């Protein structure tokens, strides 16, 4: 039995155990049920029926990295919204104005990213 501080989080633990059990259970059930007759062609990565010409892992352009970078930044921005939302009823208009300022400053970055086509996949 976990300590009383953690008791409210017990359902999350139960959910995680169920999710883990479902994932592992499906894999094990599949392993037990399916016939297993491998041959080299079957084990090849599927590439529209053609024999694969190259390794699936090669170096990607750094431009994909931007997406991850921007995700991290806006994720950190979103984190600030949590304590704001929890305390909003107590702090009122003052907190509203400062959060709008916060978002406005970041909106500049968002507009910049948009204008520079950072969200375009090319």
């Amino acid at each position, binding site marked *: 039995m976990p300590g009383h501080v953690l008791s409210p989080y017990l359902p999350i633990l139960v959910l995680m155990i169920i999710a883990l059990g479902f994932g592992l259970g499906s894999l094990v059930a599949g392993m037990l049920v399916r016939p297993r007759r491998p041959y080299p062609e079957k084990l090849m990565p599927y590439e529209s029926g053609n024999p694969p010409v190259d390794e699936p892992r090669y170096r990607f352009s750094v431009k994909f990295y931007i997406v991850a970078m*921007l995700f991290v930044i806006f994720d*950190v921005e979103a984190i600030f919204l949590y304590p*704001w939302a929890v305390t909003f009823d107590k702090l009122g208009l003052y907190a509203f104005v400062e959060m709008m300022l916060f978002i406005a400053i970041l909106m*500049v*970055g968002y507009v910049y990213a948009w204008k520079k*086509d950072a969200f375009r996949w090319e």
Partner: protein
Amino acid sequence: MNPYLFGYLGAAILALSALSLTRKNPVHAVLYMIVMFFHLAVLYLGLGAEFLAAVQIIVYAGAILVLFLFVIMVLNIKEEMEGERFSGGWPFGIAIASGLFLLVVLITGNIVPGQQGPYTPGVIAAQTNTKLVGTLLYTQYIFPFEIASLILLVAVVGAIVLAKKKLR
């Protein structure tokens, strides 16, 4: 916090960190790290710091490790997996790490607790951690909070300038 639970979390965090350090495949290392971060989040929850736990999962397990996976994608993973996992400097690293550990062991015996501040565990537990963080962040620490948005803005611009091939 229940000592058995703490023991499990500590052991799991150490084991997962060691696993993540010793994996040759960087993707596996990152996956062990995600599990380790979830254990850390539970540790924070046990300390009553639920906001920190949420940050741990949303920012670290969610965003930072996605960034790590992207970095691994940009690397040539095949080449990385062929070489030795550790370069020659590891005995030196172990010596430094054990020295630091010894220092921690020596110091923990002689800690003099400082004066108790206004935010004791009792006060925090009464208000809940997230609420207290919010109240302080959006009143007393409003200026650092707005500065944080500027730092994030610099990061957005910097990422685009560095990684975008041709700026329009």
